[in-house]
């Protein structure tokens, strides 16, 4: 069921080599699709890969550290002598837990990144920032919720605000989404997904998401990376990777008989 639409080629990726507790993450992703989906069982290290890319793994929790970002050239983000802090990486994350700022309204949450960063240098930059916020509000259909506080939102609404907030952040070089559509009903998800994909493509931003939904991967025409025990087990077109995974599962079942 792969979509034959020709998609633009990206050349991006992340390399993450860390010991996180008992898990040894060793992942070197060379990606060419605009959207990549990380699949894998719980505890395989998918979320840790995203957190490492953002620089959020605490120094206390990790040893043997190396994180590189590949956007054209290779840019070291973290190693024995270097640590680029999260706010200087230009990597945005919509986390699994929406983590909305409870003292701010939905509108203020979405505009947070603009307020948090140095003011726009030119009127053009200011217009661009306002356009990003307006686009995020429209894309995630948040107009009726703008003046509400997070405590007054449902789980799915919080998830949408979290994605809109990451989407609206300026100077984004890579978008990471950790199970972004959890709690959002299927119909709405089917409407939001293509718009989000299109919105990121229009800005030339590649995306990597973690999901357990096969449907989502197909809908995004994503490149799929299968992660197991902190390593890449398989990588490629969604239909091929999932077909191989199905064969593996069947072999396992047959061997048990």
């Amino acid at each position, binding site marked *: 069921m792969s979509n034959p639409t020709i998609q633009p080629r990206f050349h991006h990726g992340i390399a993450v080599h860390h010991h996180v507790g008992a898990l040894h993450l060793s992942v070197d992703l060379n990606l060419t699709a605009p959207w990549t989906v990380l699949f894998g069982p719980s505890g395989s290290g998918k979320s840790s890969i995203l957190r490492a890319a953002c620089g959020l793994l605490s120094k206390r929790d990790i040893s043997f550290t190396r994180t590189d970002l590949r956007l054209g050239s290779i840019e070291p983000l973290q190693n024995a002598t270097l640590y680029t802090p999260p706010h200087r990486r230009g*990597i945005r994350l919509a986390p699994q837990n929406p*983590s909305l700022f409870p003292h701010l309204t939905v509108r203020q949450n979405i505009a947070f990144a603009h307020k*948090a960063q140095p003011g726009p240098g030119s009127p053009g930059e200011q217009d661009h920032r306002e356009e990003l916020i307006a686009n995020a509000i429209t894309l995630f259909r948040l107009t009726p919720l703008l003046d509400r506080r997070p405590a007054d939102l449902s789980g799915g609404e919080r998830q949408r605000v979290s994605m809109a907030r*990451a989407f609206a952040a300026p100077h984004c070089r890579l978008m990471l989404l950790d199970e972004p559509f959890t709690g959002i009903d299927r119909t709405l998800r089917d409407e939001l997904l293509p718009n989000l994909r299109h919105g990121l493509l229009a800005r030339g931003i590649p995306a990597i998401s973690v999901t357990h939904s096969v449907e989502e991967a197909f809908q995004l025409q994503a490149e799929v990376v299968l992660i197991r025990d902190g390593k890449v087990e398989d990588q490629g077109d969604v239909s091929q990777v999932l077909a191989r995974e199905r064969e593996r599962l069947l072999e396992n079942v047959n061997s048990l008989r």
Partner: protein
Amino acid sequence: MDSTSILLTLRLAATTTAILLAFATPLAWWIANGRSVTRRIAQAAVALPLVLPPTVLGLYLLVGLGPLTSLGRAIIRIIGHPLAFTFTGLVMGSVLFSLPFAVQPLVAGFSAVDRNLIDTARVLGASPLTVFRRIIAPLSRAAFLASAVLTFTHTVGEFGVVLMLGGDIPGVTRTLSIALYDQVQEANYAAANRAALWLVGLSFLALLLLYARSSPYQESDLV
């Protein structure tokens, strides 16, 4: 009723509170953000005035700031007189004695801020200072209020350190609690009663402010 003592007490409490809030905020943030031995030692040192008799601290300050120590001699060289028995000396003693009352609520408040909110703000491009200003400080409003109120009320009611370090100089170091003690010594119970009522009133009002303005954000909102 000695209005000078009331004004002096309020001035001492306000000055101590202002100095301590400025000093305790970065200290509490540092203590709340790590588990190192150095931080635990600092936390224990900060809490020391809670368990020490105030007269012990007063004695150390009196001797330490006097001409018998090199620090005391340096201070005398710079300002021309010892710090003991002056308002500045009193402020210094109050700051040290009320330190745990300023730091502990802030450490508790900062520690209660959800780490995920801080991480999310950083990933959205906020520098550590911006994260503190826009996320941690507004979410710790109740802690700041508690810190200010406890420091203020504790300074208002201070006795041991004030007596040891400040002596009992009218208009300079005679605070309400010292005035109350003097009046009891002189068997002037009516005046003592008025001073006591002032202390009860000030303390009650400060605590009422603390409890009336509880945080509008419940922990369950921090999602």
